[in-house]
């Protein structure tokens, strides 16, 4: 009898589907990283600089581990092309890099998911609201020309993705489509061309419009595309942090990919809250998430990484108690 009750309870729990962004956390973060690489390529096209090529090199490890597993030859070609870009950021090499990135996305993300409107919408949301995305880029643009170009390039990509998604949503939610177009119109006014306007506007306008698009997409698709609570945000970080050490011995690049993504998710979703509520725990987590990728890059032995992984797990558990 007791067992039956347990099974029923388990079934009831299992029936509660995870929010879309959690269920597809891995392909989504890969799509986000690949899209941001594309954005970086556009930045390079409009504003060739050492910083822009360096940014490409920084972004690549966010997909390199997974791509090694799927298609190591393709990764090799991509790396080589990005190295060439650093020396000569000319049109044909840029075009080649873009083609390779397109193929990488196809290799990394299952076709069924790529054609899922919810997935496409989630990628738009990430491009608008994530670290290195449109609204954050516009906020940073006050002090940096390149941040503006990045925000503008991200917005161009969002428009392309939206053009592909719009016909599907037009039938489901004409009102939602109107709201999305209105908010994209606001972003279009803020980011009129690759060259920054003489005076930028309040970055809150970009943040608000990005959020408007996100909410309207969620409503039109009746699915949750962004975390609404801290336990979900923590799950995103944990999902990336937990596999770091288990995969490190055999798949170093994959371990680095997880570690860097965990660091990004931590900064995006948890840092502000923990810094306010638990400054010591925040420092500890931030330090570990900084140190672990450094050790992986330095080829540290597994035994040197394991204590950090254990400490990270414990600190995230402690964060879980705070962020309930």
């Amino acid at each position, binding site marked *: 009898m007791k067992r039956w009750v347990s099974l029923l309870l388990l079934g009831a729990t299992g029936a509660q589907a995870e929010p879309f962004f959690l269920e597809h956390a891995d392909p989504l973060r890969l799509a986000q990283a690949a899209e941001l690489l594309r954005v970086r390529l556009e930045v390079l096209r409009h504003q060739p600089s050492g910083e822009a090529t360096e940014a490409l090199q920084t972004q690549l490890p966010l997909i390199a581990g997974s791509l090694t597993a799927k298609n190591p030859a393709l990764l090799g070609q991509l790396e080589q092309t990005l190295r060439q870009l650093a020396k000569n950021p000319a049109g044909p090499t840029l075009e080649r890099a873009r083609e390779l990135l397109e193929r990488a996305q196809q290799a990394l993300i299952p076709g069924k998911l790529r054609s899922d409107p919810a997935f496409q919408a989630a990628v738009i949301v990430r491009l608008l609201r994530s670290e290195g995305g449109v609204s954050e880029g516009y906020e940073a643009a*006050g002090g940096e020309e390149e941040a503006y170009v990045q925000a503008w390039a991200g917005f161009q990509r969002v428009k392309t993705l939206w053009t592909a998604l719009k016909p599907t949503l037009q039938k489901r939610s004409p009102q939602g489509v109107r709201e999305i177009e209105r908010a994209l119109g606001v972003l279009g006014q803020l980011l009129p061309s690759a060259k920054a306007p003489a005076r930028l506007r309040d970055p809150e306008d970009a943040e608000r419009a990005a959020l408007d698009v996100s909410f309207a997409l969620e409503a039109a698709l009746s699915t949750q595309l962004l975390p609404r609570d801290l336990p979900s945000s923590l799950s995103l970080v944990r999902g990336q942090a937990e596999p770091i050490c288990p995969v490190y011995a055999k798949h170093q690049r994959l371990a680095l990919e997880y570690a860097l993504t965990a660091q990004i998710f931590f900064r995006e979703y948890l840092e502000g809250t923990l810094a306010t509520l638990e400054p010591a725990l925040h420092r500890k987590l931030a330090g570990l998430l900084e140190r672990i990728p450094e050790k992986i890059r330095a080829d540290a032995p597994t035994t040197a990484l394991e204590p950090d992984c254990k400490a990270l797990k414990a600190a995230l558990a402690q964060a879980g108690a705070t962020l309930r």
Partner: protein
Amino acid sequence: MGGLKRGLILAGAIGILAFSSVSRVQQKSPTYRAFVSNEYGASITVIDVATDSVIGTIPVAGRPGEVRPRGMAVSPDGKTIYVAVSDFLPKIETPEDKIVAIDVASNKVIAEYRIGTNPERVAVSPDGSQLWASNENAAKGTGFDLKTKQILDSFPTGVEPEGVAVSPDGRFVYITGETSHTVTVVDAKGLKLVKHFLVGNRPRHVVFSPDGSRAYISAEIGGTVSVVDTAQHRVIQTIPLGLDSRIVELALSPDGKRLFAAGGGTNAIYVIDTATNKLIKAVKERMGRRPWGVAVTPDGKKIYTADGLSDSVSVIDAASLSVVKKIAAGRGPHSVVIGVVR
């Protein structure tokens, strides 16, 4: 008593009665005015509550779109409106970052106060002696003494502070941290940071119940209202209003029995019974687009909303909970408060 004397006494009594009723008539009942901050128009629209017509527009900055009036507060006697005005230069405090005081009777700007960089919202203490501003980009809450015209102190808050309110006993200030999902508690008398605590995702606004025992905090992304036990500064209940609700401003009826939450995502005003913390009604019909500001008249008869996307104010009848009028405001209405002319 002779007939004449009785007649004189009667006449005198009638005279006194007549005089006292004349006095009652002559004693003016208060007049209410709704003040609406127009974020993109850099102005305040003034609405006569009796007729629901616009009776004035007060410019508060010369650079619409760049310098913005946002949150507002009313002095305890209802005679002064305080408006948080800021530009968007995050690191620098400029002359455009200020709190503007408006005299309700004359609709004139009577003072300007500098209370730190980038003030997004402002609150006034129940005795009218202090102002408290949330300094968004500085991640601080700043207190200001209206008598000495000096800053009392600044306190670190969560990330992107926004909502700010002073408890009815004047002891505590609550400041919401928009991207840290926290509320900061400041002891307004001892000028000490008390604590930070966690609320819903992206908290935007806070109000205290009239008796001060509860605080209500809206969460835009969470789609919730957190109910806080102010004795412990702890969330004791969370009222879900839907993930698409995008709740921003909150207002309580004067008796504290009803909480009105402005839902910009659904173009609705959510009406909550504070005894049960249950939703009574979502007022949607004829509402303007994106109501993010909400205020209740001191007599509790009407609710006014600031509708950001339709450049309008919706007027809701508190008895029927239905929209009875829509009034054109300036560009981008952000907040609304009710002032009193006595």
